[in-house]
């Protein structure tokens, strides 16, 4: 069995985001970049399945600028076998990414595609779903548990009412939740070995698909600053403030 894992390079979750003055986006120069956290869970789960003997090969794929290769390199260091970097110099919307991934799927013919449930930079939560739709494959989203069987996969996913268990046919698209597992560290020798693993490069615009963006971004701005809190001296004052000023009761 073969798993394709899609990983995305995003601004590290510890970095405080700074919005550009002209409202066109956020600053990324010399900002620490990392793998999108749920994508780490996706890789980890694939590696675990490989260790259990159920999976033969893991291919990590990313779409992005030259430096996005670091994200594939990291996936290789924790256990992916080879990588694919689809080079794209500007931002591509989830639909475009899904179309690119579809091309990769057609070439690689994996049994499952793992993705993070969403990326922490644009928070779209769409790529996995769109990919499943255009591939016409079953999908399991927000997956927090995976039980791989011969021709199906049983997944547990978090929904509003609690946990839902589904069994879906292979091939399938699965998007991973943070609670799926705890990603391992890359060890020094594995980081070195990863430097020697192959990464194939493809060029997004040469794939012969329509990846042009359809959404016009009007403006990026910081959320309004939260006002500092106040101390009240009595319960009566608190109730009165909640009633008259905050108007919540």
């Amino acid at each position, binding site marked *: 069995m073969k798993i394709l894992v899609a990983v995305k390079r995003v601004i*590290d979750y*510890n970095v405080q985001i700074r919005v550009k003055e002209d409202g066109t986006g956020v600053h990324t*120069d010399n900002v620490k970049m990392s793998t999108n956290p749920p994508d780490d869970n996706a890789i980890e789960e694939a590696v675990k399945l490989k260790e259990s003997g159920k999976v033969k090969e893991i291919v990590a794929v990313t779409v992005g600028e030259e430096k996005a290769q670091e994200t594939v390199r990291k996936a290789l260091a924790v256990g992916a076998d080879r990588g694919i970097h689809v080079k794209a110099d500007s931002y591509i919307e989830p639909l475009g990414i899904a179309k690119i991934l579809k091309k990769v799927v057609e070439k690689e013919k994996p049994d499952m595609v793992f993705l993070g449930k969403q990326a922490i930079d644009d928070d779209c939560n769409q790529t996995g779903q769109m990919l499943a739709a255009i591939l016409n494959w079953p999908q399991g989203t927000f997956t927090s548990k995976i039980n791989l069987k011969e021709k199906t996969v049983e997944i547990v996913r978090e929904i509003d009412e609690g946990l839902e268990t589904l069994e879906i046919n292979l091939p399938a698209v699965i998007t991973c939740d943070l609670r799926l597992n705890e*990603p391992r*560290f890359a*060890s020094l*020798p594995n980081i070195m070995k990863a430097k020697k693993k192959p990464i194939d490069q493809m060029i997004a615009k040469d794939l012969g698909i329509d990846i042009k963006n359809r959404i016009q971004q009007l403006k990026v701005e910081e959320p309004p600053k939260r006002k500092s809190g106040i101390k009240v001296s009595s319960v009566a004052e608190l109730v009165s403030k909640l009633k008259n000023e905050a108007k919540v009761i």
Partner: protein
Amino acid sequence: MAREAMEYDVVIVGAGPAGLSTAIKLKKLDSNLNVCVLEKGSEVGAHILSGNVFETKALDELLPNWNNEGSPIKTKVSREKFLFLGKNSSLSWPTWLLPSVQKNHKNYIISLANLCRWLAEQAEKLGVEIFPGFPASEVLYNEDGSVKGVATLDMGLDKEGNKKDTYQEGMELHAKVTVFSEGCRGHLGKQLIKKFNLDEGKNPQQYGIGFKEIWEVSEEQHQEGMIMHTIGWPLDNKTYGGSFIYHAENKQIYFGYVVGLDYKNPYLSPFDEFQRFKTHKAIRKILEGGKRIAFGARALIEGGIQSLPKMFMPGALLIGCDAGTLNMPKIKGSHTAMKSGIVAAEAIFENIKNKADLSIYEKKFKESWAYKELYAARNVKPSFSWGLILGIIFTGIDQILFRGKLPFTLKHKHADHKSLKTANQMPKIEYPKPDGKLTFDKTSSVYLTGTNHTENQPVHLKLKDPNLPINYTLKEYDEPAQRYCPVGVYEIQQDKFVINSQNCIHCKTCDIKEPSQNITWVSPEGGGGPKYGNM
């Protein structure tokens, strides 16, 4: 069971300007040498913080083509100012009356973090292996007592030291020569200095705590290339320190403050002195309407040659600020750190090729321009122990009239942790409340550093005696850790001493200033700590 080990010709601990210079120079001398650099930050540059007005002398020697290879060295210093501040006044000192070491017209305003990122790229192009996110946590020794290499920290331990599912044992890195370039108060460097008595016969080392904020200001307030230094208010005559204000590119101002860690009053809070400094009318106007976009702090080493330890030992070298090569009156350490790194590479090359003794490193360093500079600078810092005014007068005579050639050397009398007086001998200091626009609290500041340490890992700030903070330091000194820590790691909560180690920005001040030397900084799990951008 023995840990896994990898063999290298040279292992370098710390990807700062010194360590990266050694790596680059080694590869230029012999491209077949196996060189690896360990870095505790999550990427190169993440733990680098510096003013920084950069003198290119060492870089000119290392990479003469830096100007054409996309280096982030762009903003030449175009104007200089020096101010004495009183509480309500400011006196501009004519620059022609400044000692030549403080003239910067040939220098550049840079982000040292970005320079290190660029140096790391150059090193990797030459074949150096750099591993960010892997702190060296232990020195390894051969049977004959010489340094064998280092081990990286075990990862995936919980608070109690139990192995989590993600546990991964540390690795050993063995080398013919191990180079320690951890920066000021490196925790392995400190162990080596002790073990090999490297500071025997030297003066106690001297330190300062430096703060830096980056501000984005309006075009009218910004004069690219302009640099300004101040001394005086808000520090009193007896406390050593001053500010720097550098107008860098992109409408940014690098704004910083240094306080000598030999201050006496346990109520003094270096962080709050820095915040208060911004409220001076001569300073406030520079920042008015601007926005603070970054914050950080790091200890710096100020002892100069009187405190410079022996820089070699069997199998290993100390370079840069891990040894203490900063030039205090110049307020610069990057060029001398890089020079010590270059010289170290030359010595290692001789050692590996021709079996030359590693002591040639110190010999070569003493013959270099870097040491000559440090020699001429040696009397400035100790003269300030007489107070600001006498210090300035003496420095004028020493640096302008005699150019550092006075026939005597002043001494540093005691280590910084011994300078604190007990709380009952010193006045309390009331600091103004931050306004959230010009002045800030520690919480909002640490947020800007992006610092983080994975939860549930062993606390990396070790107490020799866990009861000492409450039983002794609180009573005698009103527990100064609450104030000298720039990000509020240490708190007294209901008679308990709390260590919020996840906020630590690796500045090392606690390790230096704790009056009983009760706090030891050790490396946390790899990748933890600040994530500085353009610092």
